[in-house]
């Protein structure tokens, strides 16, 4: 998708004015947070599991090359093929070739952020192959020509009335007077339509939550079972996954799974957790004849050994955005990138460079709630700050902020001058505050006073008043300055 992160501010303002979106975002705030808390509270070892999950991923990242080689060898041994893709373009080309070799007309897809990252659907369509999204949320937004607004709940920005309208618009082969007022009827209709598409598809494409080095297995978690149907009913199964999805063992996978769904949706486990290793074997009743894994780098290896390495621990649970007040206010589309919310504010600049994406790491209050719920303990605010530092070094910080800050820092670094300016300035400002003790508008403070009053200062500064009080105390004693 086209990166629109540089328009974040304008998109955010638009999102704030969208009443329907605001209502839908209220559900993110109310739903996910309580569910996660309940799930975490119910598990005494939850915090220890988070430490464990972090340690597993840190270990993998320190030895990523070795585990990737081990993984490749295991996939090959089980009859599958591993393809290395350095860029998004490489990955698109490889997937297209696999589909063309299979003479594919349609492909089904399980929900996958990585195929959003490489804009696979557009590429397949442009080459005459129809991609069909099978995750309900993804299916809905595909009908609307939109992109996911959330990494686990892609259509969370929509309400059921909008979905009903879309289904009536697209599913014209069904009776016009059918009742679609209940979520369950919408679900049944999507199921009926999609069921036929699974059987018609030549290739099934999924992402992967984990790639297990010791067994050459890819793992996906879903709540709808669509991933299983996608990967078993087609003649060919293509897994597209980024290199940091590696975990060493089955045991490690089980450990991280325990924090994944709890952090994402508050479930103990997602409804389906599907392990697939290689193509269909002779004794298997079903499964794909061919099994391919496309391993995508797309800038990730260049994050290794930098201050952004910790970001590669991310398991895409969405907890950070579910708890982010900025995400709650503007939703995922405003970020103008594949990955929204706090995790996107760190990852997007890593993948796409800071020049066009600089708004994202700035659009945070640094409230730290994202870090406090991240199951992998990724220090998200710290890494956003690192991006701000890179911007500042390269003069990408907007000039108003830059000069305003420099002006402030000039005084902050010169206490005597600061005291002098403050001892004149604040009483003056206090006087202008008048009897209402507030400013409804103030030159140069428009960003503040547009929406709120500025409380007037009391008058003398604290240090001025303190010095005066101390001087009065000293006077009667008539003591020397040295005492």
């Amino acid at each position: 998708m086209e990166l629109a992160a540089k328009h974040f501010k304008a998109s955010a303002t638009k999102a704030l004015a969208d009443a329907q979106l605001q209502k839908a975002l209220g559900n993110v705030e109310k739903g996910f947070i309580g569910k996660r808390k309940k799930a975490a509270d119910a598990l005494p070892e939850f915090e220890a599991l988070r430490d464990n999950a972090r340690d597993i991923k840190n270990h993998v990242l320190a030895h990523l090359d070795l585990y990737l080689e081990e993984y490749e060898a295991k996939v090959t041994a089980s009859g599958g093929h591993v393809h290395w893709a350095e860029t998004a373009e490489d990955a698109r080309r490889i997937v297209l070739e696999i589909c063309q070799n299979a003479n594919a007309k349609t492909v089904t897809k399980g929900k996958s952020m990585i195929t959003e990252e490489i804009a696979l659907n557009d590429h397949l369509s442009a080459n005459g192959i129809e991609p069909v999204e099978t995750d309900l949320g993804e299916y809905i937004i595909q009908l609307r020509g939109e992109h996911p607004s959330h990494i686990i709940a892609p259509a969370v920005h929509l309400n059921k009335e909008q979905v009903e309208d879309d289904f009536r618009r697209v599913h014209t082969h069904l009776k016009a007077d059918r009742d679609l007022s209940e979520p369950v009827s919408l679900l049944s209709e999507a199921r009926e339509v999609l069921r036929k598409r699974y059987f018609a598809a030549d290739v099934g494409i999924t992402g992967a939550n984990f790639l297990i080095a010791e067994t050459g297995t890819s793992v996906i978690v879903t709540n709808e079972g669509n991933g299983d149907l996608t990967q078993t009913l087609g003649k060919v199964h293509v897994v597209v996954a980024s290199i940091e999805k590696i975990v060493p063992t089955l045991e490690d996978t089980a450990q991280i799974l325990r924090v994944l769904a709890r952090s994402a949706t508050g479930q103990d486990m997602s409804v389906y957790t599907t392990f697939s290793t290689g193509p269909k074997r002779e004794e298997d009743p079903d499964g794909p004849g061919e099994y391919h894994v496309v391993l995508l780098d797309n800038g990730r290896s260049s994050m290794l050994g930098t201050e952004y390495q910790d970001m590669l621990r991310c398991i895409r649970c969405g907890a950070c955005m579910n708890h982010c007040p900025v995400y709650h206010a503007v939703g995922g589309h405003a970020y103008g990138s594949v990955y929204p919310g706090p995790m996107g504010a760190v990852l997007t600049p890593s993948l796409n460079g800071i020049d066009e994406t600089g708004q994202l790491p700035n659009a945070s209050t640094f409230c730290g709630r994202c870090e406090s719920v991240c199951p992998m303990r990724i220090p998200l605010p710290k890494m956003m700050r690192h991006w701000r530092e890179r911007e500042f070094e390269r003069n990408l910080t907007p000039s108003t902020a830059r000069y305003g800050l420099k002006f402030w820092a000039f005084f902050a670094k010169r206490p005597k001058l600061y005291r002098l300016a403050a001892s004149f300035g604040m009483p003056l400002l206090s006087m202008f505050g008048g009897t209402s003790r507030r400013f409804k508008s103030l030159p140069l403070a428009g960003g503040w006073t547009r929406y709120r009053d500025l409380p007037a200062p009391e008058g003398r500064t604290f240090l001025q008043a303190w010095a005066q009080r101390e001087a009065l105390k000293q006077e009667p004693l008539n003591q020397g300055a040295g005492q």
Partner: protein
Amino acid sequence: MSALSNAAAQPRVGLFATCLVDLFRPSVGFASVKLLQQAGCEVHVPVAQTCCGQPAYNTGDRADTREIAEQVIEAFEEFDFVVAPSGSCASMLKKHYPGLFKGDTKWEERATRFSQKCHELISFLTDVMMVRDTGARLDAAITYHDSCSGLRELGVQAQPRKLLSGVEGVEIREMADSDVCCGFGGTFCVKYSDISNAIVTKKVGNIDTSGADMLLAGDLGCLMNMAGKLKRQGSNVEVRHVAEVLAGVTDQPPIAGSGK
């Protein structure tokens, strides 16, 4: 003498007033002094203080931040403790200063030693000075906003509530989502004023729904943000820094509102 053995006698505390308290709300500084003295501290206010450097730090300007940090360390490191009436500034001193000097062993050690002496005011009173009761009294139904840095970086949550519940006449009415950001976020509130407004609007709604007639918090940035919004909306909810109530120093008009 070590800080702790000194503390057993009369610890020398350097008060880092914070720029907002210094410039906008001196009464919070005096309330802090009173609370610290009541707790048995000898309070000093070094004149070489300006700001902790957070605006520069969060804008990505490490060079200026470091210069400011050196200045703060030099002005305050002689004291047994450094106390700030703000979770966010205290956290800057305590959690973020050492990292500014990575690669400069001498300064890094100095900053680390310094950071260990730094505390947020209310948690310092309860956790270090073991204060259980400040002896204040006030007839008010209060609600308390947990400011983000103090809450998540320093673990300040139970401490102010514990002390407030001991203030005679005070009734605590918890608002919904008291631990959710108010939308201040330093420069965020002016850089992204539309989003900040959306966040503070929700916060003010929760304050109203709590039915409290007074809003307290431990950070002047958040307080000025919420007070500014409450005033703009014509609310009567009185806004004060928690130190003012705990010290029983409520002679200055509130930051916003007129109470009941």
